[in-house]
């Protein structure tokens, strides 16, 4: 049966994608669907939180 999900298509490097997957593993609050190495669909209302989390990871690495 055909299903339609609203969301945000995110296209990024595999490295960034794996970070997103790691963040999602904690609560499964972000990802709607993993599509391939460089593409995934994120819940629309979680985009800003996700960006903030990514920046945190970035700041930690720097």
């Amino acid at each position: 049966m055909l299903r339609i999900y609203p969301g945000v298509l995110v296209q990024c490097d595999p490295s960034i994608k794996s970070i997103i997957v790691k963040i999602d593993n904690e609560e499964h609050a972000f990802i709607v669907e993993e599509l391939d190495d460089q593409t995934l669909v994120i819940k629309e209302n979680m985009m800003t939180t996700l960006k903030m989390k990514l920046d945190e990871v970035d700041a930690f690495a720097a």
Partner: protein
Amino acid sequence: MSVSTLASFEYLERLPGTTFRRLYQQPSTALAIFRRMLPHLAKTFVMALLYMSKPMPLPDLDLWVNPNSKRERDNALQLLSRLHIITVTAPSRDDPQTITLTKNFTESLRLALTGGGDHNSFGVPSNDSVAENVDLAFLDEYARDQWEGILHYVVNSVGEAMRGGGQGPTDAVKKLLEAGKLVTTGRHSGKGITQAGFSFLLQEVNAQVWTLLLLWIENAEKMELDSVEVLSFLFMLGSLELGRAYSKDTLTDSQRQMLPYLIDFGLVYIPRPSSGHFFPTRLATTLTSDASALRSVSAGFDAASSAAGGAKGFIIIETNYRLYAYTNSPLQIAVLSLFTRLKARFPNMVSGRVTRKSVGNAISHGITSDQIITYLSTHAHPQLVKSSALHGGPVLPPTVVDQIRLWQIENERMKATPGFLFKDFENAKEYEGCVRYADEIGVLIWRNDVKRMFFVTRVEQLRDYIKSKKIK
């Protein structure tokens, strides 16, 4: 298409059909939508259908359209039905689909084009305008003062408060700005500007007016106003003539209630609270004009602001990222301080530098590099424009422009597109059909044939398509 059109568009498209039916009872609304919102092809369709007494078969309509322009045709029809201007019958096996204009829209547009009726939809001019001594320059000045007052309030909510002249907007406007999240009243830091507020500041005047008006409409129900009444009143204002007085007597009660708000925005001027007529200002009369008139709005305002001392172009930016702005307007300085590190302020100019940090700061507030660049180039100093014309190069130094863009992409490691994911198709044929259709109408951005999934930006058209497939 301008930003403002897009904003008002999106709002209108969300309205239900009943609202549209009521809106289209006013000829001024039908005309405003027709001339402002529709692309040329859609206008052609409407004009052709306007005096057609019977529904027109869709295949006949296709004959008018070049087969190569199927996408434009689909877009036009889609837009027309989203705005409830046309109705297309559901596809069935026996009869071809037919297309008709909706009844209210037809009647109103006919009235608007050919005149007649006693609808007063375009306002009733009042006779005693000469006595009031109100001329165009005065109205422009008045509208500019009111509007800058609002902008000042938004800007001043940024940390570095620079108190400009004037008494600022009224409480009603302040509440509205808060409700629209253009400024916030935080617990610790008092007032603050938000991301939406930043991009609001950098828009052109017409877009700003629409943004604020849409906020107002959205909050209108809280103020016990009917959003349909508000919208049709705005569309009426857009059809009035600048510099003429219009009678208050023909307004409905709720329209009279709206007047105080419109006075606060600077869209309408009333000489005395007791007087029986009102003047629309340039802000109001250009609400629904098309793109060329829109440019003349900004031209009108530039003229107004140059009279007040701030010339049109005042920014000089050098290849070493130094920026000099010949202005003493607190508003312009505050806007500049959003993305430049200002170092010195003189009576007639400020100087500073565009740095990675200052631009990054702006970007983190939601301002895009393109907004910054557009702002810089529209306000470039005449000297800068002259020398670029002499050498045939771009107005802004390319190094600076490129660098600002680079600073933006620095932190953009992912590309995000809102939309809809389609998955779990029953068979390859169904998938193929849908994905091909999505590609044709230009909404497809990602597909995976093996997994039979794809991602689109818009869903309405596809939904209709899938439904029509199910019937067959």
